[in-house]
């Protein structure tokens, strides 16, 4: 993950890219590898308000179901509808085309609990 310095990471294996107050969220390469081939995603409704660490959906493969947790507080403004027909994008490009949701963050934005790329790498190594 150290080659993606502009991302921040949660302890629950989500990544977040922040542009002004818009946060794009997905699951990490490590998470998609653990999960295996993604078969379907349960998305939140657009407009839903989330707290930091709140469960906002589920991502399922044949072998497992994982809960998805919001890295920041805010309002869901978009979900990646391409994943309905092509859930494998999460496996093929987890930090790019495999993004899950976009959130308009509440200001002031609190990212103090999020990890840098190095800190996330450390977390994964310790597992």
């Amino acid at each position: 993950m150290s080659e993606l310095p502009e991302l921040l990471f949660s302890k629950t294996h989500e990544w977040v890219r922040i542009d002004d107050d818009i946060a794009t969220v997905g699951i990490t390469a490590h998470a998609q590898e653990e999960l295996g081939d993604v078969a379907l995603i349960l998305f939140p409704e657009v407009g839903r308000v989330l707290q930091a660490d709140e469960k906002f959906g589920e991502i399922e493969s044949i072998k497992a179901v994982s809960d998805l947790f919001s890295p920041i507080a805010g309002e869901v403004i978009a979900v990646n509808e391409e994943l309905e027909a092509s859930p494998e994008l999460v496996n093929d490009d987890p930090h790019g085309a495999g993004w899950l949701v976009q959130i308009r963050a509440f200001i002031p934005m609190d990212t103090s609990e999020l990890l840098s790329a190095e800190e996330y790498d450390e977390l994964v190594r310790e597992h």
Partner: protein
Amino acid sequence: MKQTPLYDVHVAAGATMVDFAGWNMPVSYAGTVSEVQAVRTKAGLFDVSHMGEFRIVGPHAFEMVQSITSNDVSRLQVGEAQYSLLLTDDAGIVDDIIVYRQADDGFLIVVNAGCLDKDWAWFEGHAGNYPDCALVNESELTSLSALQGPEAIRIGLAVLGSEFSELHRFQFALGRFHNSAITVSRTGYTGADGCEIFCDDRIAVQLWNALAAEGAVPAGLGARDVLRLEAAYPLYGHELDAEHSPWESGTGWAVKLGKGDFNGRSAAEQKRKGNRNKLVGITMNTRAIPREHCTVLNAGADSEVGTVTSGTFSPTLQQGIAMARLSIENSTPGTEVVVDIRGRKLSATVVKLPFYRNGV
């Protein structure tokens, strides 16, 4: 954890390994979905050496096997195999097995890895009535590979020789590979055509490598579970257990009450007469994955009608599928039901089984 002779091959191939019944086994290599697709379009290769192999030989081996198993071995010629069940005294299921008739008085029994010790004790416990029979546990010496898919027979013949080309489904024959005896049977657990190859542990790696070199795609236990569910084959611990009769588990056909006495026969007769539940197929009407133990409700979602025994997302059918045990009144194909998946109540339909079978 125990290892099969192919452990190093799996690790070198980058397999994700998992503990299965105390064995360190490959759950996937390239990925479960691509491995399922390989079996459905080309040929997949599975290491199932963890399964158990018992041999029963002796003047009364036929009587012994006939008295312990539910299916009728008098239907087997030498060189033929059949699916069968070991029943408890109450006509619950101890395990499902394949019985191979190797000689008039010689049988090979293949059992599930997770039931190996239990089944061995079962056979030993019933051997006392047949003192002239030898019972041998050959599991530790025997490797087993399953080659499955539309290309499987072509690949198998190319590697093993054309003398196996006459085998029909559920027939088997002896042969040689690298100067070691092998048994090739036209059987499988995937709903695809193909074969299973028993060999001595010492040549397991050469055999695997030869089949892979000819185009067989390594496939793991994750794919195996999806494929057998698509083909509607039951799995011990899911569809089959000691608490449910064969008629509640889709395996009543493997119980031949007319063959004479066998363990569990009188209870089996009662269970068959009074049967209230049936194993059915379910397909989800929206994109969702039913899982084992999910409750199944009627269409109005106001009463429970049964439980999911196995569920997955079928890459072949591109939808969630399940086998479920439902009350007989709700088991007719076409019946609309609701599956409770982690609190969400989702529409589904009862369908005829299997979901998929090809070439078998």
